[in-house]
């Protein structure tokens, strides 16, 4: 309510609740909803992209960054989670075929 911050008058907001700026949700990070944080174990990850495909946000990015696992395997890219938008739904954790994503309680 009004004690939080001053919001605009009914006169100055677009009628019908239209949002005039496309893609403006990018300005609203939703990562603070998270209770559990998914963390990709880059050594275990097989780069199958299932998590990337099923992330509903989508907050899993394919990063153009080579990675060498502890056993010496070379990957040309890395998968990273954008914690500004990851809501902690756990779908990636559930679906990862090699259980390479840990789900760790957020400590705030």
């Amino acid at each position, binding site marked *: 309510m009004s004690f939080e911050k001053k*919001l605009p*008058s*009914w006169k100055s907001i677009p*009628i*019908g*609740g239209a949002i005039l700026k*496309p893609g403006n949700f990018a300005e609203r990070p939703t990562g603070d909803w998270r209770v559990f944080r998914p963390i990709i174990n880059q050594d275990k990850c097989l780069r199958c992209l299932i998590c990337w495909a099923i992330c509903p946000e989508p907050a899993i990015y394919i990063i153009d960054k080579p990675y060498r696992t502890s056993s010496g395997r070379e990957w040309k890219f890395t998968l990273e989670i954008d914690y500004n938008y990851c809501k902690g739904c756990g779908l990636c954790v559930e679906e990862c075929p090699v259980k390479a994503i840990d789900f760790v309680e957020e400590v705030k």
Partner: protein
Amino acid sequence: MSDLWIRIPLTSNYAAAYAAKDVDVDVVAAYPITPQTPVVERIAEFIANGELDAEMIHVESEHSALSACIGASATGARVFTATSAQGLELMHEMLFIASGLRLPIVMAIAARALSAPINIWCDYSDLMATRDSSWITVIASSAQEVYDSIIQMYRVAEDPEVLLPAMVAYDGFIMSHTYEPVYVAKDRAPILEYVPKNFKNRYRLDPDNPITMGAIADPNWYYEFKYQQVVAMRKAYEVVKKADEEFGKRFGRSYGFVETYKVEDVDIALLTYGGLYGTVQEAVDILREKGVKVGAIKLRVFRPFPYNELFNAIKNLKHLVVLDRAITFGGVIEGPVALEIATLLKFKSLDTNLYNYIVGIGQRTVTESDIIGIVDHVSKLIEKNVVPMESIYWGVRE
């Protein structure tokens, strides 16, 4: 003036279809229901004959019909639909989406009783159940008024200061299926000068300038959007009036919010809406020949409720009889229009006595004799100095 118009026999359903054609609607989506069906049949003919260049979207229900209209209107298209009774109730949820998104859809309603039990005939239960949906609501009394009002409502609905949807209702069967003379435009150009198509003066879905419509508004925001609708509906009061006056100036026909008939010298007047008004006028003529002084009043616009015009029409009356063709079950008074008028009387400090008669439910026959009977009945109440709060159910079998 006469080069503009051609006088042809039309039902109110067909008059609605002609109006949609003459404002050059872009999209029509509707689902057939008695007694509305001929509206859409005629529009389909216009499209098939090449008289109207519009997209007809066939849908599986009225809920989908209005949904399709909402989607089309959101792109800036001029949109028309029509329904009745259960169809309007199936649209009910979407009525609020259309008005909440501020989409200027215009809809014809062939007013019909609500089931159960099933009754396909006329009363205004369907229309009155949409009272709080934030649609501008007009009730016509002739096929001519149906045609003219639909054209006027496009001008009102699309006004940038209004941007609310509008309905034009008329008696199911009694008007929807009765042929009578109607002046329709020979050429739609003068009509389109009166209601120019300008889809750019409102928010719309455009791939080149994407916006979001229909987002969530949390408790910090929702209230402001609803207040905008309140202001728009208040604004519509002026815009409806101006649109009607301008129509009169250009085309020689205007209707006002309220029409009065022989009320100048009377203590008692009968107020009603829709096709029944004509029958009441005729009963007034008969009564006056017998020396009984009564007048008739027609309510044409139900939302926004024309409190000023109605106040002027009733302020000198001692007794006002409101004939309602719908029931608001469990209300203080059970006629929906009587309930509004009671509020008006109170806040305008009028001491006019109000008598509410319920008539014509499920198209129970109402003739001049019934109206004369009601005047007789109310005269006895006046003699006894009784003003019952309960609505009087005229003609119900005991």
